[in-house]
């Protein structure tokens, strides 16, 4: 019962926070942090003990009695939500402060709490109807957070796209839960593995939850929404909100039977999302848009784990499936942590320079060393490099896939392209984040605003440091986090109830520790040697040119040019090029822009066709009464005809 009380404390904290959001932001923060801490404790309690908290009330809401339930899988996501909700709230106090945003800051605090509360309810509801209500409220609070800066046109457009996509997904979920309730006779959900007639419903769940998770090609709303939202909102949207889609998929693929093809489809979607997500990211010039595309990539990695685990379960060999699933699940935490860190870092850069355009930044390391260092930590983590957490989860997925191939089962053939493409994704992400760190933080400032950059205060740096520490902790001591992963996996597949950590997980942790220690020591040693030998300063070597300017630095577009060239078939970059002409050319310019291909080439043409058809159909409605009476008569005649013919049969 203790988790129940803790959750009550958490809910009270968040609700009380909402009431003090306008008048007393300090109490808002205190209540929010208290609530987040209580929720985190409850989640750790459930993950640590493996118990299930179950609470029923006879009080009906919408005709259904309230039923709340928290098991290890829900707690796994709740822990991430609590951490990001807390640190994001602290960050917002400085980043979205009342001085700079007098009207939107209080509303931002209210919607922040609403978002947290509703996401937690999504995780807790054990009744389909209430799940849908919570889901809808969560989507709406997300909309109001994205559009905090409503006076800007691009923000409104992004918010509208988010809203439309979100509701398209909700529509699928309505169909899913309604069909589920119709077939089982109850809105309550729980394990129903012995009902093969429920299997086709999986496709509805995939569409609904997939839209929220932002898997390719359902990601169209994601880049603009995450780029236009305030950075702490981007962090929680990328870190937790899209994971709600993953939660839904994991929850219902675990509880309900799935069609035979389901695992394959999820795995293929995962691979496609991973590779194309990072390819699109490479083509972006906007720092936050780039990070948003990386969410698509990481959702892909999570789905590779989930998809192959589903394939394995369908074929009855669960040994390697557990590793793949555990990798995907741990990546939920990892991506939540490092992506939130990166978004907060990007927010810090935006706060200091006023721009998200990478080509206007540069050399920020000197002005904001803490932001730069923490952002680079996040970059190393998201590239899946040791000794940080990104590597641990990808390593688990790899292990599962390698074992699948060694088992030479049905999945073995599919594993080969998956492994190679997962490796390619990692290398592409590395290229992308070398680019980001290099262009934004290294070199010299490219514009006046980058020169005037300043370091953020501790309210912004503190949350980033917390997230960075969490990334390092999972990387250096992965085995400590294994029980949580194992217990949450056991909810998905009860056979894995007592899964011991892979023996080599301890060794990986030890290796990471050695690597981190020795790396730091080596850096210090070389630096000492450099100091001792003496340092002289001069301009960067540019083939003897004595006055290099910041404009001569390599640009983000050039850096990724080779790779975006390879992916030109899908990125379809738009180039505006005025070449040099004549003997004494005066002006030349080149600019490149990577559009959102799926949105502009598929969804918008389809939308315009729908609009044209609707316009044509609208001619039927013109306000002339005589014509309407004619419609009525025709309708009645048709009905009469139908009845007569039906009667004859």
């Amino acid at each position: 019962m203790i988790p129940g009380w803790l959750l009550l404390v958490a809910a009270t904290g968040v609700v009380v926070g909402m009431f003090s959001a306008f008048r007393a932001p300090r109490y808002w923060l205190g209540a929010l942090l208290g609530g987040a801490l209580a929720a985190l404790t409850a989640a750790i309690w459930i993950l640590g003990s493996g118990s299930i908290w179950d609470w029923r009330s006879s009080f009906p809401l919408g005709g259904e009695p309230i039923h709340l339930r928290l098991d290890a899988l829900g707690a796994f996501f709740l822990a991430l939500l609590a951490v990001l909700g807390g640190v994001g709230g602290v960050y917002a106090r400085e980043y979205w402060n009342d001085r700079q945003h007098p009207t939107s800051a209080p509303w931002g605090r209210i919607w922040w709490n609403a978002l947290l509360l509703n996401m937690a309810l999504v995780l807790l509801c054990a009744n389909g109807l209430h799940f849908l209500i919570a889901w809808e409220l969560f989507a709406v609070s997300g909309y109001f957070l994205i559009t905090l800066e409503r006076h800007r046109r691009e923000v409104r457009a992004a918010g509208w796209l988010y809203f439309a996509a979100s509701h398209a997904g909700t529509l699928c979920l309505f169909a899913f839960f309604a069909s589920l309730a119709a077939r089982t006779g109850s809105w309550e959900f729980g394990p129903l593995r012995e009902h093969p007639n429920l299997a086709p419903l999986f496709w509805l769940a995939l569409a609904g939850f997939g839209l929220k998770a932002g898997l390719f090609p359902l990601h169209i709303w994601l880049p603009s929404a995450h780029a236009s939202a305030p950075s702490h909102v981007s962090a929680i949207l990328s870190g937790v909100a899209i994971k709600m889609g993953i939660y839904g998929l994991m929850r219902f693929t675990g509880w309900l039977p799935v069609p035979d093809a389901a695992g394959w489809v999820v795995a293929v979607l995962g691979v496609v999302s991973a590779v194309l997500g990072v390819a699109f990211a490479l083509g972006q010039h906007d720092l936050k848009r780039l990070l948003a595309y990386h969410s698509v990539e990481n959702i892909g990695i999570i789905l590779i784990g989930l998809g192959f685990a589903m394939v394995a379960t369908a074929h009855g060999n669960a040994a390697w499936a557990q590793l793949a699933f555990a990798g995907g699940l741990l990546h939920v935490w990892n991506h939540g942590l490092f992506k939130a860190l990166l978004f907060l870092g990007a927010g810090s850069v935006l706060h200091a320079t006023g721009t998200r355009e990478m080509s206007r930044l540069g050399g920020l390391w000197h002005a904001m060393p803490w932001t730069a260092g923490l952002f680079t930590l996040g970059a190393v983590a998201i590239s899946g490099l040791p000794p940080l957490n990104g590597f641990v989860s990808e390593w688990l997925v790899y292990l599962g896939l390698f074992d699948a191939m060694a088992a030479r089962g049905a999945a073995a053939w599919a594993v080969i392209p998956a492994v190679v493409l997962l490796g390619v994704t990692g290398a592409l992400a590395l290229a992308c984040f070398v680019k980001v760190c290099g262009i934004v933080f290294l070199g010299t400032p490219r514009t006046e605003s980058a020169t005037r950059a300043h370091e953020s205060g501790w309210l912004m740096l503190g949350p980033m440091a917390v997230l960075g520490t969490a990334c390092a902790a999972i990387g250096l001591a992965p085995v400590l986090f294994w029980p949580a992963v194992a217990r949450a996996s056991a909810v998905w597949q009860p056979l894995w109830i007592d899964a011991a950590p892979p023996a080599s997980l301890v060794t990986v942790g030890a290796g990471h520790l050695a690597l981190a220690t020795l790396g730091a020591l080596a850096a210090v040693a070389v630096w000492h040697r450099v100091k001792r030998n003496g340092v002289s300063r001069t301009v960067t070597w540019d083939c003897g040119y004595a006055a290099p300017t910041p404009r001569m630095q390599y640009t983000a577009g050039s850096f990724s040019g080779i790779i975006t060239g390879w992916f030109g078939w899908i990125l379809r970059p738009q180039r505006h090029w005025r070449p040099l002409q004549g003997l004494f050319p005066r002006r030349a310019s080149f600019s490149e822009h990577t559009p959102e291909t799926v949105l502009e080439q598929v969804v918008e043409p389809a939308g315009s066709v729908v609009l044209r058809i609707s316009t044509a159909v609208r001619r039927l409605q013109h306000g002339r009464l005589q014509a309407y009476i004619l419609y009525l008569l025709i309708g009645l005649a048709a009905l009469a005809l139908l009845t007569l013919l039906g009667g004859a049969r």
Partner: protein
Amino acid sequence: MTIALDMLLRLFVWLLLAPLMPGIVNKVKAWVAGRRGPPVLQLYYDLAKLWRKGVVLSTAVSPVHIAGPAVAWIALLGAAMLLPVGPGGAVMAFRGDALLFVYLLALARFCTAAAALDTGSAFEGMGAAREVSYAILSEAAILTALLTLALQSESVSLSTMLAPAAGAGAALLAAGLFTVLLAENCRVPFDDPNTHLELTMIHEVMVLDHSGPPLAVILHGASLKLLLFAVLLAEAVLPLGKLSALAAVGTLMGSVLVIAVGVGLVESLLARFAFRRVPMFLTTAFLLCLFALLVAWKGGGA
């Protein structure tokens, strides 16, 4: 005590023998060209000199410029520790160390490229862009090679994977891995370690602004990487696990020498490729490894 001794011995072998590799390659090149060439130990002299020299830093650089090469060197050393040395085995052998090996090389790449971008030089930007772009293809090839070995040995630990012979696909695997070795170590035909034309280089251009001890660390790391790939190639193809300890060590040393001579011969006889042909050549390496994988699949009797 024996563990510590073993560790020290291993470190000495890797750290002390690595700079021999470029020396041998250069000697072979000189020999083919009919020159006397620099002494085989030239890199040792260079390293000793650089370690004692002062440093010229660009005004644009941050701590990344110094820390990058140091961490990259540690990452390469870590990768070397994961590789089994003939009968000696690896320092740490565990399930999945093959993947850590690949990602340690990636970490070294991240650090080197970041340290290069730190100077804000367009040339170094170019080199870093090429390095990280072409590495995507070579990483795909390495992973395919590892898949092949994993399929044959039914293991994901380098010590077990590298012990048996590569089987029927050995020639394909050797060709693929040798190509990757040339690309990853920036040798002709992908890159020319001798050129001083910044526009055409990959790796050498990334270190233009390094000097003194950091440059020494970079050069030593590069030689370590060459030795690493040579050992990987030799062990992947030859059945060292079946030989007695002494024979295995002898074979390993001999084959690494052969590979070094091979690199030197390739460098003497081939010209550098145009950059647009590099991806094609690396894709060929990937395909070679993929065919080796298919051969291994059939050989195993699915």
